């Protein structure tokens, strides 16, 4: 447990200190604020419920900000080798799976910081206009329901996949996946958009809107219809669980491989 917390703590610390994390998050978040258009949260009329306002903000930020997280997390596992720290870490008496899990938790924590900051800032800037302190509370709910699960899924894949496909290729594939799997209209091409598997937080945001409309494409008919139930509180919770579990799949696979390699024994003959 000490080793897990140590890796998580120091991974969080190193990642949170990365200027690129804050610059990328600020640029992407800022671009979304400026370019949100008349369907964005700033255009919602006064009197719109706080949960709907913050749900819309959370979805807006989720459109692009996870791209930054995926890009930045992509080198976290391979960088130990690149920095030549790996031989030392491997000589220490803890399981590689512990290091992997610690990096995952620390990476999520670090990426969650700008995500949470963006939502709280949005809530604070909305306060003078809407005079509703509940905005802060709903910002936290939106963070948990929309932002965090997506970061968890992105973190799982971004940590493990670059070990197999290289960091640059992962980044290219990730950008392609993000637009294909989260924003491409499901009636245009077969895609994962609007399914329970979308890390953009479509189901969670739709539950927050609670106005009978879908936030983006949640539940819209299309490819893999069994993954497109009608949006509700239950399906939002299910989507959160499925998205988080999806992120754990590559981690579990990597942990099994690492565990097998360290369990390896050799024929001992004198």
């Amino acid at each position: 447990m000490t080793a897990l917390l140590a890796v998580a703590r120091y991974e969080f610390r190193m990642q949170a200190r990365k200027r690129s994390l804050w610059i990328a998050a600020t640029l992407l978040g800022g671009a979304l604020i400026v370019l949100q258009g008349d369907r964005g949260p700033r255009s919602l009329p006064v009197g719109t419920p706080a949960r709907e306002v913050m749900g819309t903000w959370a979805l807006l930020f989720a459109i692009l900000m996870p791209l930054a997280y995926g890009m930045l997390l992509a080198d976290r596992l391979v960088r130990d080798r690149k920095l030549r720290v790996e031989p030392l870490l491997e000589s220490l008496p803890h399981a590689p799976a512990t290091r992997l899990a610690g990096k995952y938790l620390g990476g999520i924590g670090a990426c969650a910081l700008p995500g949470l900051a963006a939502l709280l800032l949005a809530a604070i800037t909305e306060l003078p206009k809407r005079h509703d302190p509940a905005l802060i509370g709903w910002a936290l709910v939106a963070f948990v329901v929309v932002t965090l699960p997506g970061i968890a899924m992105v973190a799982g894949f971004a940590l493990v996949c670059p070990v197999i496909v290289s960091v640059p290729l992962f980044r290219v594939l990730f950008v392609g996946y993000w637009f294909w799997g989260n924003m491409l209209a499901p009636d245009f091409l077969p895609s994962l958009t609007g399914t329970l598997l979308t890390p953009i937080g479509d189901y969670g945001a739709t539950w927050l809107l609670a106005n009978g409309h879908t936030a983006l494409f949640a539940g819209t008919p299309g490819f893999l219809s069994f993954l497109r139930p009608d949006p509700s509180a239950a399906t939002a919770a299910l989507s959160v669980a499925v998205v988080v579990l999806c992120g754990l799949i590559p981690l579990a696979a990597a942990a099994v491989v690492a565990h097998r390699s360290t369990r390896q024994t050799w024929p001992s003959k004198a």
Partner: protein
Amino acid sequence: MHIEIADLRRRFGRVTALDGVDLTVAGGMFGLLGTNGAGKTTLMRILAGVLPATSGRVIAGGHDLSTRAGRVAVQRRLGYLPQDLGLYPDLTPTEFLDYVGLLKGLDDRAARRRQAAELLDLVGLSDVAGRKLKGFSGGMRRRVGIAQALLGDPALLIVDEPTVGLDPEERIRFRTLLSSLADARTVLLSTHIVEDVAQTCRQTAVLAGGRVAFTGAVTDLTARAEGVTWEIVTPGPPPTDGVVVSAIARTDGTHYRVVSPQPPAPDAVLVTPSLEEGYVALMRSAAPAPVG
């Protein structure tokens, strides 16, 4: 920590890095010499539990390294400075040592921090303990490396090519530090710099082509060059017979030290050999007959 290695082999595909190594390390400071590619780093990595062997037996402190449990048991008492260790550039030395200490299982926060501070003081980095590692020179990084290896007061210290890239002053300081540490623990020093072993170790082994070419006292390795180490002074070109170990230009001509079974020139005189010449004699099989 007593280490017993028997018939240790390691292959990388078709390349044999270790080819039946037999070695006993009783304790204290032990030097492992060999050319680049001799298999030293592979042996060090196996002993550190980082790399599995292909076959063979390694018992360290009573633990069998061929098993996961044995490796972990040794790793709990191990300090390891890998060849060309990298550090996290965005951490300070204090943070890096705290991190490694936590991973070594040093749970008591106050004790861990106290030890980190003491070790940074020992390696002369107290003044820069709060500075990010990214600005550190090669020598300073090495010193952080040795400090992390000493965390937890390990019974076995493995240092792989620790003085490569250090300036002469830092090399001497580093060697002195390692020597002083060997009083209370086993220190395995792997290097291709003979002088480092000459100045610090009483026992040594020489690896060549993945095999042990020599194991024994440093003085015995030096003795390999007795009767085959010559000095000649000439203004002309270097002698062609034997291996020229050193060449120093002086006013009366260039002084060559040569390892050769035959006098390399009519006026060559036998001289007392150094460890480096003993090593050369061994590696070139220039010694008249194996001893010990």
